[in-house]
């Protein structure tokens, strides 16, 4: 392992608490910008600037590459807080700010290249939907089309996947391309999370040196080149389970944001039928509010507890010098915990959506936005609770399990 020159973070004394405070301060502005963000179909430039300025993209970035390297619990709290203001903006932030973990699988050399001189790096990725990598003098020529590239507008690089031409069995690889080497095609038009701008990324015949390409994590027992490249065991934890903490954090934030608005509705809107009192005066609405708060509290407690379990597993792996099995039982249980956390948030938001008044169903309303964000999130291929449940059951019974 070669030592690389350290990059100083812009604010060396910045703490996790201060990052959280900054995230909290952004919430009202982010909520105001929700309709514009959804209409623009991407994170607004002013929001991106605010994230940059607050140092939020560097939340989970290793210190020596110019980041703040906060703990996983803090990462979850900070990402939740931003998502509370705007689920779409929080989504893009979490899915880029969480990716230093992904990058840590590449060699020091590759990581140093990506973080560059100042540590300004945002690398959205698409681990599936492989393109083609053709081996060519010490590297590869890569082409591919990858959908759902959350954060591509703010990206400095992109992580794509490809099958190596001629490999048998087919070898799935992940690769890092520079911003100049990919095009963005706007094909993002889902019913929710519109503001994430999770568009298509296209590469045609991009020449990549060997060190930009690694075997896809979880498809082979070989150790990734970046294994233990950071002294912090967090980066030795399972990759997929880390990525789903991002989604869990967004779900909690989206639900808290919906609860915020619901409280305002109950305090200001009267029933439109007898007895015409404020909704907040009515037992049934009070009940819904309490239920929603309870569900999200439970979800958050579970996710934070999951973060501790994640770190324990990562520390064991780091100390034993034995990577985490991304398809193993322990990892699946974490995934199931994350999925259930999202389910609880979804349930809370659904309660609020159906009782917050029909105005919630009008375009751009924050309650409707939260509901649709959770709904679209739950169509994610990695969030299929039924499938993961079955797979966990199979593992527990000593049988082979399928993907996620």
């Amino acid at each position, binding site marked *: 392992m070669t030592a690389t020159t350290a990059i100083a973070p812009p604010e060396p004394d910045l703490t996790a608490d201060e990052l959280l405070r900054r995230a909290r301060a952004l919430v009202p502005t982010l909520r105001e910008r929700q309709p514009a963000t959804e209409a623009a179909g991407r994170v607004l430039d002013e929001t991106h600037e605010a994230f940059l300025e607050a140092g939020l993209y560097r939340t989970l970035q290793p210190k020596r590459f110019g980041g703040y390297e906060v703990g996983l619990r803090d990462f979850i709290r900070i990402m939740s807080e931003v998502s509370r203001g705007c689920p779409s903006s929080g989504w893009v932030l979490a899915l880029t700010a969480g990716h230093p973990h992904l990058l840590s699988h590449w060699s020091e050399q590759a990581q140093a290249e990506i973080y560059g001189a100042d540590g300004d790096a945002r690398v959205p990725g698409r681990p599936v939907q492989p393109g083609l990598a053709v081996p060519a003098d010490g590297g590869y020529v890569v082409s591919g089309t990858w959908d759902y590239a959350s954060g591509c507008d703010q990206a400095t690089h992109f992580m794509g996947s490809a*099958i190596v031409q001629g490999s048998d069995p087919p070898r*799935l690889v992940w690769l890092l391309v520079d911003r100049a080497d990919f095009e963005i095609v706007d094909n993002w038009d889902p019913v929710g999370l519109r503001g994430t701008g999770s568009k298509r990324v296209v590469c045609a015949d991009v020449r990549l040196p060997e060190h930009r390409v690694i075997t896809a994590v979880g498809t082979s027992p070989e150790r990734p080149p970046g294994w233990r490249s950071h002294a912090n065991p967090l980066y030795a934890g399972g990759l997929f389970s880390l990525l789903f903490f991002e989604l869990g954090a967004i779900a909690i934030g989206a639900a808290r944001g919906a609860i915020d608005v619901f409280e305002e509705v109950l305090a200001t809107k009267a029933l439109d*039928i007898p007895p015409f009192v404020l909704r907040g005066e009515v037992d049934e609405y009070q009940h819904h509010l309490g239920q929603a708060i309870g569900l999200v509290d439970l979800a958050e407690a579970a996710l934070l507890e999951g973060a501790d379990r994640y770190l324990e597993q990562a520390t064991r792996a780091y100390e034993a010098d034995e990577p985490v099995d991304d398809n193993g039982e322990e990892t699946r249980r974490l995934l199931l915990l994350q999925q259930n956390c999202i389910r609880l948030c979804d349930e809370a938001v659904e309660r609020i959506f159906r*009782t917050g008044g*029909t105005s919630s*169903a*009008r375009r751009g309303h924050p309650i409707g936005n939260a509901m649709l964000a959770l709904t679209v999130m739950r*169509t*994610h291929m990695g969030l299929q609770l*039924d499938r993961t449940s079955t797979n966990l059951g199979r593992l527990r019974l000593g049988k082979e399990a399928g993907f996620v």
Partner: protein
Amino acid sequence: MSTATDLVAAADGLRERLLEEQAATEERTRYSEELHETFRELGYYRMLQPRRYGGLETDVTTFYRVIMSISRGCPSTGWMLCLGSGHALQVGSYWPEEAQEELFGDGHFIASASFAAKDALARPVDGGYRVSGTWNFCSGVPYATHHIGLAPLPDDGGVLVVAVPRKDFTVLDDWGDLIGLKGSGSHSVVVEDAFIPAHHAITFEQFAGFDVDTTPGYELHGNALYGGAFVPFAMGELNSVQVGNAQAAVDEFERIITARRTWTPSVGEGTSRAENKDYQRCLGLGLAYTDAAYSIVERCGDLYLEHARQAMEDGIPIDEERGFRIYGQLMTAHKLCWEAGDTVFRAASTSGARDGARMQRLFRDLCAFRTNGIHQLDFKATSIAQARLGLPVDFYTQA
């Protein structure tokens, strides 16, 4: 075209056409004039109209079955047809003979109706009322001959239900910004100082009350169909659309999993999703939930007539508890419909959430009614219990 089976079979026969026209219907904010003509020829606007005015006096359950079938092709169309044609039952039940004679007129009668009024007022004048106001959510109004609106009398003098003829109202171009049911023709209606003869208005109590032993419609038509409590009927209408909507989502899910294959990093493209148990489970749940909801709606259609018959013929009035317990069943059906739609939407992959995807539209349509303030089982549950316990009902008393 007259038997119950024929009416339902004809609706089933329109399925493909309705599916194809979904996007255009949404864009237009109402179903097409061609489809309107087809419905007219099939007698769909006359199903609940009294025979003496050219109607079919179809039983409520058959009416629901037709609406469930149409909605399975297009929820917006089902909603608009249902609410446009269903109010014939209201007029046929509670309006006096003279008014029915005039309102049903030549036999072509379509009426929107709405509770949601802004600045509505019925000012008593000689022989009737001068009525003004704006009513929102007037589903069915694009091809309506009449609009039925709630209008308060001055000085807290009670609330009237007035039937306003087409010549006396204008329709605003303000429908389509709700998340779903964009093609349901639920535009707003504006009435400006129209004269409504006294017999074209009834009181809110005459229309919403349970405790009656006869109605003008029962006396006139001798059919218990016109002696029921209208609000439970209307709840059944809305839920018929929900059932069709959820069935459509399940149909679409079946199409998707049959057409698509699984994909995993290690294996690449795998087997048909239809052969995968996780997808099978979702389809099975979707079918079970929608089958159960369908049965509930049918049963509530039967109960409508059963309760009406007992009230009209055996002197056992429809009390609050019986009415509320119909709501409870229908709201349970609604929960099942939502559960079915949510289950298949999630499992249909993110491509089903995209603009233009039929799955997305069907999900949005389900969302649109999900926010209905009075149609929430957990709200209604306490009212059901209060009615059961003989306590005063303190919340959502009427609906």
